[in-house]
């Protein structure tokens, strides 16, 4: 098909409304949504889960499924209404003029087909290219997405590639026919931070190179800041604010946008002096939206009788370039008013050492043959010489990407696995080789865990109350059923859930509420050490702040030691006292939060800091993109674990990095770095994140 020349906006969505029809009722998913994407422009679509941003993307693809339907408005692609096209015309456009990239790369690739074949299909179908030309094109695109050894890539199956490589292939596939519009639906959510940074970099570069317009869907404001020219904030099926990045980030004109920015930890936020401000209330269900402004019930500026009267239209903001807001009061609100500081909390006193790890090692033996044993056994070194101390009411953050050994460490601490070597000392008792079955009840209830996935953390077929009572039974709390019930209700109070939730099933709770129940369960036996494994990373931004604050509050009250496992450095900086950075089973840096976030860095910490997107236009970041993927723990590189991706490697003489594991070096009091770099080079390092002068 020949591509038509057209110089208006690539995509023009005008007052689009999309509904899903179910057995019970019509559920409006998107209402009165308008956006225009100019050639070469990248537009971000931001909002919490359930706000309808993915529905918009599916609407553009005209792929709403059986019960989804466009009930109003139009979607024009290069001036032609997509809704009026026949199936054949749509088939021609999809994949050739509009391409879409989904969240899960593995699900977008056919596992039974070689990469090369899948890529070549695109131009062969859409442009009728012959096989030879298609192969050359595939080879060129794979080179463009910076994959090593493109020829071998084309000849491999999807499962032979890592997640980051797969996502690059998906991007390559989308670019095969040089589409005019690229829709990216949370393209990096399934990837690690450093890999995400590299993919984002690539998308930006390719957008420039091919002149592709992009619709970038994400829940991460920082990511949108880095990739897009304009953005559109969505809330509960409506666009509430759209405008250029600079306008929306610095001169926001909608209360929801403001609340969203106040609930994410930006540099400068602090758990004691500048706590995050969570958005009160819950996201309304699509069929229970309030009259008038959808955000009304949760809004600080709500005015009864005015905001809840009629449907509210988008209004332009004078003086700005295409900056619109869906708020009746935006002209009256003083947007520069400082946040009324809610309640500053006294910093908790850090107490004695409760937990001490000394040279902890955990190796797994992987046998080649399960039935008869023997054969070749491989050793996986999941944790290598882990040493640290954790004190009472201290928050120690453990930072690292997948495969760095943080989960193994948690398992060993909890007693689900026993250590290979080294010691774990809890209150002067060694527990490293006591499996959980042989631990006494007190030890078990002292160390508890909060899990990552809220949809997985509760047993779906048991009531919430029953699950907490079970934990109380196991920990021997309370003498009778009635006493335990009373205690369970108190625990619900503690996590600020209504007592009526005791009789609910987990599926009736939202993600944040489930996570609160998970926290209540962990504190059932008055836990002294709580391992929180990414407790908020799967939650929406506005809920994250509330759950984080809850954890901090309980910690302050109970003097709990919190081991906070995370890959999100913004939240780590916000809440932790000390930070431990792990890479491939090694602790590469350990120190107080200020020490770790300021130079000298370990080269990996430096890259990690640079990779985390920050939603603040006044922040200047050094751009450090790591090459390649994290090596497998089955087959770690010799010498320093980070040497394969380190940009400072050349500064170490004699190839020392490839030969020896670096020693642990004490920098200042309590700050240690595992690196070969000489002192003067470390001292020369510049801060990655700089707040630009106002």
């Amino acid at each position: 098909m020949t591509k038509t020349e057209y110089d208006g906006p690539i995509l023009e969505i005008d007052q689009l409304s999309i509904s899903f029809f179910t057995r019970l009722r019509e559920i409006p998913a998107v209402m009165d949504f308008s956006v225009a994407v100019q050639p070469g422009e990248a537009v971000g679509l931001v909002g919490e889960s359930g706000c309808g941003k993915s529905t918009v993307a599916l609407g553009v693809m005209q792929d709403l499924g059986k019960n989804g339907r466009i009930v109003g408005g139009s979607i024009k692609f290069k001036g032609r209404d997509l809704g009026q096209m026949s199936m054949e015309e749509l088939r021609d456009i999809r994949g050739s003029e509009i391409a879409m990239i989904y969240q899960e790369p593995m699900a977008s690739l056919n596992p039974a087909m070689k990469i090369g074949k899948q890529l070549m299909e695109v131009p062969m179908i859409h442009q009728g290219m012959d096989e030879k030309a298609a192969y050359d094109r595939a080879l060129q695109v794979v080179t463009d997405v910076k994959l090593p050894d493109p020829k071998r890539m084309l000849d491999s199956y999807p499962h032979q590639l890592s997640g980051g490589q797969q996502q690059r292939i998906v991007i390559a596939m989308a670019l095969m026919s040089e589409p005019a519009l690229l829709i990216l639906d949370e393209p990096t959510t399934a990837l690690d931070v450093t890999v995400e940074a590299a993919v984002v970099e690539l998308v930006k570069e390719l957008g420039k190179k091919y002149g592709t317009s992009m619709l970038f869907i994400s829940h991460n404001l920082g990511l949108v800041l880095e990739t897009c020219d304009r953005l559109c904030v969505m809330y509960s099926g409506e666009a509430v604010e759209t405008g250029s990045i600079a306008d929306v980030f610095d001169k926001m004109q909608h209360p929801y946008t403001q609340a969203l920015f106040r609930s994410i930890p930006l540099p400068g936020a602090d758990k004691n002096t500048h706590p995050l401000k969570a958005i009160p209330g819950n996201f309304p269900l699509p069929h229970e939206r309030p009259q008038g402004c959808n955000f009304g019930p949760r809004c600080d500026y709500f005015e009864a009788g005015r905001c809840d009267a009629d449907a509210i239209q988008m209004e332009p903001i004078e003086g700005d370039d295409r900056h619109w807001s869906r708020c009746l009061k935006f002209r009256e609100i003083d947007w520069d008013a400082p946040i009324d500081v809610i309640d500053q909390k006294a910093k908790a006193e850090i107490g004695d050492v409760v937990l001490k790890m000394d040279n902890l090692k955990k190796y797994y033996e992987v046998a080649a043959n399960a039935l008869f044993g023997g054969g070749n056994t491989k050793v996986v070194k999941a944790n290598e010489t882990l040493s640290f101390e954790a004190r009472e009411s201290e928050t120690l953050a453990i930072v690292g990407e997948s495969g760095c050994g943080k989960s193994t460490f948690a398992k060993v601490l909890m007693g689900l696995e026993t250590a290979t070597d080294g010691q774990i000392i809890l209150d002067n008792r060694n527990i490293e080789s006591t499996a959980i079955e042989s631990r006494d009840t007190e030890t078990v209830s002292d160390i508890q865990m909060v899990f990552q996935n809220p949809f997985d953390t509760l047993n779906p077929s048991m009531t919430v109350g029953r699950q907490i009572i079970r934990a109380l039974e196991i920990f021997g709390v309370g003498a009778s059923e009635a006493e335990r019930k009373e205690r369970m209700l108190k625990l619900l109070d503690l996590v600020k859930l209504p007592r009526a939730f005791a009789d609910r099933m987990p599926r009736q709770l939202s993600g944040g509420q489930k996570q609160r129940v998970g926290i209540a369960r962990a504190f059932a036996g008055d836990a002294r050490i709580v391992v929180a494994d990414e407790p908020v990373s799967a939650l929406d931004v506005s809920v994250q702040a509330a759950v984080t604050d809850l954890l901090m509050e309980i910690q302050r009250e109970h003097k709990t030691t919190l081991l906070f496992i995370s890959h999100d450095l913004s939240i780590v900086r916000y809440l932790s006292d000390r930070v431990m950075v792990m890479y491939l089973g090694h602790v590469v840096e350990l120190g107080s939060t200020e020490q770790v976030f300021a130079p000298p860095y370990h080269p990996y910490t430096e890259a990690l800091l640079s990779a985390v997107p920050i939603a603040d236009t006044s922040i200047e970041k050094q751009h450090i993109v790591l090459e390649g993927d994290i090596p497998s723990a089955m087959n770690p590189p010799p010498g320093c674990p980070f040497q394969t991706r380190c940009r400072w490697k050349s500064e170490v003489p004699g190839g020392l990095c490839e030969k020896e594991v670096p020693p642990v070096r004490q920098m200042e009091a309590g700050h240690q770095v595992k690196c070969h770099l000489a002192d003067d080079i470390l001292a020369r390092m510049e801060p990655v994140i700089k707040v630009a002068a106002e």
Partner: protein
Amino acid sequence: MEPLTWTGSLDFLNPIFIALIFICAALVAAYMVASVFAPEAQTTVNPDGTLSVSPSLLTLVTSALKYGFLAIITVLLAYLIGGMFLGLNAGIIGAMSQQFVPVWISLVVLFVLSITYKRRLGLYGKLFDSTVGMIGFALVMFWVFTGLFGAFDMIVTHDALTQVSGMKNKVPGTPMRGADEGDFPYYLLGGDNLARDVFSRMVKGCLIVVLIAPLATLFAFMVGITLGLPAGYYGGRLDTILSFTANLILAFPVILLFYLLVTPEIRATGLPQYMASILFIFPLVFLTVLLNSRFYTQPGFRTPLLIAVLGMGGWIYLSLISEVGSKVHVIPGFADLFDLDGGILTVFVSVVFVNSPTVFRIVRGLTMDIKTRDYVAAAQTRGEGAWYIMLWEILPNARGPLIVDFCLRIGYATILLGTLGFFGLGLEPESPNWGNTINEGRKLLSIYLHPAIVPALSLLSLVLGLNLLADGLREESLKD
């Protein structure tokens, strides 16, 4: 007396019925052609939020087809309801419909109650949202009620075992020769090779099927679950050994196994009874572990509960396996609660034995998936025992696929029972169960069709009902 016709005084409906069948067949053919060639229907959305479909050939055919089927169903209902009141005047179908009156009443009551309270009944209630599921459930419950009422001699017209002279191989609707005052005057579905009433034998045979098939399947599930959970949860060598054994049993030819089990020489060695003692202990183990893992934190409650359960269960277990004068004779005759007929025991053991490996594999797979969930990790980190995790954290969350498989498997077990009966294995030759009856009828199949076709159609409709029920359940359990 005149022989009964099929529809009696309702025969004015017959031409309508036949015409409707032909019209629907033609419409189906037209639909197939139209779905290939006709243009797609355009759906548009009205401003008030309703959908409207612009008329096209395809939508026209579709709606015609719908009304056609509705008409057929209406005529069928007219036959049945008319028969209920007219009885013998409405021919064979009418008379049968009148005999089934208790079943119709029970079905209507059950459906009215269930549909009224369907929102409060969980997955069972959701079943009434799916047409397919409701049809399946109605078929299954029809046979369950038939079996139950048949056991109280309510539906049958004659004794299932009595032979009446002159009724040998008579066609359906033949008047009974020399009928006394209180006797039912007709053999509704004819007489079989030994001059017994086919209709009554079908009703009587139903009980064995609706009783043994679900029970045997339940036992197979207990065995499969008790072994599948640890295999999936622990993995490793235990899993390898158990899976290997399961594969071994699955690889063994089933029919050969049955022949071996029922051979008199093998029965004399007591092998089926030994197998029963092993297989029947699993439900006991299952219950004990289930309750102990849940209540061990409260010994005051746990111990009496377990004593009661184990006492009762143990007694039933011993009564089941022990039989005076056989190889396994562990408790004295006066303590023996009931004696299971040796044939039924063999059939039961066979069905459990061949079904449990498949259940084992399903449970094992589900366990391996669910054990990676965070709530299992949470249970581990608070020091729960392995059996608590398996039975209370994993098993309840595997229930969806297991319930569906349970329904399907009752169907297989029913067919298996039929097969066993057909081969004359297990049950005594005069037993009215469907398998036996089909086998006997088979011998004269080319001359007299009815003695074999009646139980065959019964079996077909019950298994079809079970499959539809499983389909409905699966469909509804996937929806939220």
